[in-house]
């Protein structure tokens, strides 16, 4: 059964303290892995898409990497405004029937 697991569930960092969030997945036929950021009361906001092992994407203080079994979201020198829930989603399936499977997310709190 396709599954996505994110860890840790919650993370508190001091401003400037770098860390990584993990997304482990077990799916048949990976089409892509997506990272989203979600603020309270809002919908998920797209961050990155990764399609193949070894791929990396960067945006400001965030960097996403992908292996055959997991993805990491590295946060370098975070700021309080980076506080949010970070969601990982995996898209799998065959032609015409692609499904998104979400993890439960990592709640990040960055303290000033």
């Amino acid at each position, binding site marked *: 059964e396709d599954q996505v697991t994110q860890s840790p569930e919650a993370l508190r960092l001091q401003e400037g303290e770098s860390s990584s969030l993990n997304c482990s997945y077990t799916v048949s036929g990976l089409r892509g892995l997506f990272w989203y950021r979600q603020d309270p009361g809002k919908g998920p906001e797209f961050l990155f898409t990764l399609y193949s092992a070894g791929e990396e994407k960067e945006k400001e203080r965030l960097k996403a990497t992908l292996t055959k079994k997991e993805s990491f979201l590295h946060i370098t020198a975070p700021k309080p405004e980076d506080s949010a829930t970070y969601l990982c989603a995996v898209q799998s399936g065959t032609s015409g029937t692609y*499904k*998104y499977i979400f993890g439960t997310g990592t709640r990040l709190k960055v303290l000033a």
Partner: protein
Amino acid sequence: EAGVTQFPSHSVIEKGQTVTLRCDPISGHDNLYWYRRVMGKEIKFLLHFVKESKQDESGMPNNRFLAERTGGTYSTLKVQPAELEDSGVYFCASSQGLTNEQFFGPGTRLTVL
């Protein structure tokens, strides 16, 4: 460019009543998805439209849920009759292609009393 919009933002109804949620996708996006997040759980897929056709509705919980997409534009999700376990946040998302990133709306928080 306008994002995905959903209406209403909140809905509180009693068990047994009917509720209709609406989603307006980003213009030009053929793919429209509905998801639900029950408190404490992950966001779960409900169904996927390509234009006006249901491509995949394997995530729909039961036949109390009915989704439509008129003319391939906006979509509605009707729950009739609502049960307590239907409470949660219902998200709509749209994408241009099947493997492109999905853009999410702000969600509709449904509370069934």
